[in-house]
């Protein structure tokens, strides 16, 4: 089996996945609360089978390293805030998440556009209620018309205190899975954020930095082309080897 082409192929596959991650970041450049995602590549070592064993390996001996796209991670960096003047648009200035109760259970989100449902609960765009620090939906009375939210999540109206919006952080942020619709799910335990720094009347934009994405897009493209040329050259080399062997035999 000729290895150079398959190793180059692993690089081509990884590069095309990296392009997908970049495309998704740029497509979501305007999605509130979206965090840019990055790909982690790792080398996947394969030892040549005809070598005696690992210890007997001579210096510079043949280990093959394939590229593997091992993981994606979200950049935790804060997005910029846009003022919307909507009293139930909330942006989190710390590293926590709002909790909303979906049909499939509680989900985390940083997209802070909420509305008031007809039953008085505060819900997100999909109708999932926002939960307070005790994990209960927040209920507004019909007379509560002027809503103010303090930096610590405490929500009140002209008729007094209503509750406190819960902002939680999972113990292991890497264990969150994106579910789409700006929702994240985690299996690791969460704890309340002490000082969530909620800002009322604004939304957190995505933290996608277009310059970085465009640069990574161009790098990915050129590396892809470079690797393809290698595949081409390797193919030509094999072809010429076959030609020479067949000529000698003929």
């Amino acid at each position, binding site marked *: 089996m000729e290895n150079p082409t398959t190793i180059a192929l692993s690089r081509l596959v990884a590069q095309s996945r990296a392009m997908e991650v970049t495309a*998704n970041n*740029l497509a979501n450049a305007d999605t509130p609360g979206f965090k840019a995602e990055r790909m982690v590549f790792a080398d996947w070592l394969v030892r040549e089978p005809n070598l005696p064993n690992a210890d007997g390996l001579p210096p510079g001996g043949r280990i093959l390293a394939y590229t593997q796209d091992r*993981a994606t991670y979200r950049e935790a960096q804060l997005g910029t805030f846009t003022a919307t003047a909507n009293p139930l648009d909330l942006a989190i200035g710390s590293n926590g998440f709002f909790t909303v109760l979906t049909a499939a259970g509680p989900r985390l989100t940083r997209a802070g556009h909420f509305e008031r449902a007809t039953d008085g609960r505060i819900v997100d765009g999909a109708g999932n209620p926002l939960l307070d620090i005790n994990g209960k939906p927040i209920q507004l009375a019909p007379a509560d*018309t002027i809503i103010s939210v303090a930096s610590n999540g405490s929500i009140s109206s002209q008729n007094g205190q209503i509750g406190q919006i819960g902002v939680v952080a999972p113990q292991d942020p890497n264990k969150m*899975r*994106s579910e*789409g619709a700006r929702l994240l799910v985690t299996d690791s335990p969460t704890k309340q954020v002490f000082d969530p720094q909620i800002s009322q009347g604004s939304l957190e934009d995505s933290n996608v930095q*277009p310059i970085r994405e465009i640069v990574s897009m161009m790098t990915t493209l050129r590396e892809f082309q470079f690797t393809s040329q290698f595949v081409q050259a390797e193919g030509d080399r094999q072809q010429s080897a076959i030609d020479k062997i067949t000529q000698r035999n003929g």
Partner: protein
Amino acid sequence: MRALDIAGTGMQAQQTNVEVISNNIANLTTTGFKRSRAEFQDLIYQNLRRVGSNSSDTGTVVPSGAQVGLGVKTAAIYRINEQGNLQQTSNSLDLAIQGNGYFQVTLPSGETAYTRDGTFSLSPTGQIVTSDGYVVQPGVTIPTNATGVTIDTSGEVQVSIPGQTAPSLVGALQLANFPNPTGLESQGGNLLLATAASGNAVTGNPGAPGFGTTMQGFVETSNVNVVSEITNLITAQRAYEMNSKVITASDEMLSTLTNLH
């Protein structure tokens, strides 16, 4: 190549964004108009390597999996119910609402629509009607011999009749409020309709707790902020271009592959 489709969703979303912005700018001088905002959300994710799956027989788990998102979609286009500026017109039947609430208007179909556009006129029978001739509820009729109309901040309509020293009360306008005003459906013609999301209208006199006051001789201008709309437009245009660049780059990757021989 998923990147092509992903960038395609990005271009579609930005196109929607530009449409919403252009509608805001087009309605810059529409009385009582509330600007809208397009909000986006990420599409579903494809798990290439699931978070928390085992990476060895000894029970080590993958600390962060490989997930590729599949693009973006429009989550909502919602109205921002911020108060617009009040502009003086000195027309005695121009009313602006300072605060929460909507005027109630009876449509020809008998349905009730809601509006913040208070440029009212009189019908041939003396009723207060909108610029389209729809009756403002509860119907208030101004006597034909009235010389002046005064509408106070609590919506009471008083007229001066020649020969009478004291002005006489002919009726009062009421406002409607909603649990979730963002849930109202835009009908065009400055009119909004109640929906299941907005909840049922709660009517009250202007100035009552939770209701705004009526200001005679003023109209409420749109709450569109030109500067922020133009900057949003520039951002949307550039985002559109960047997504199209991703399509070009993915296309180049594909063409590199097809040129291998």
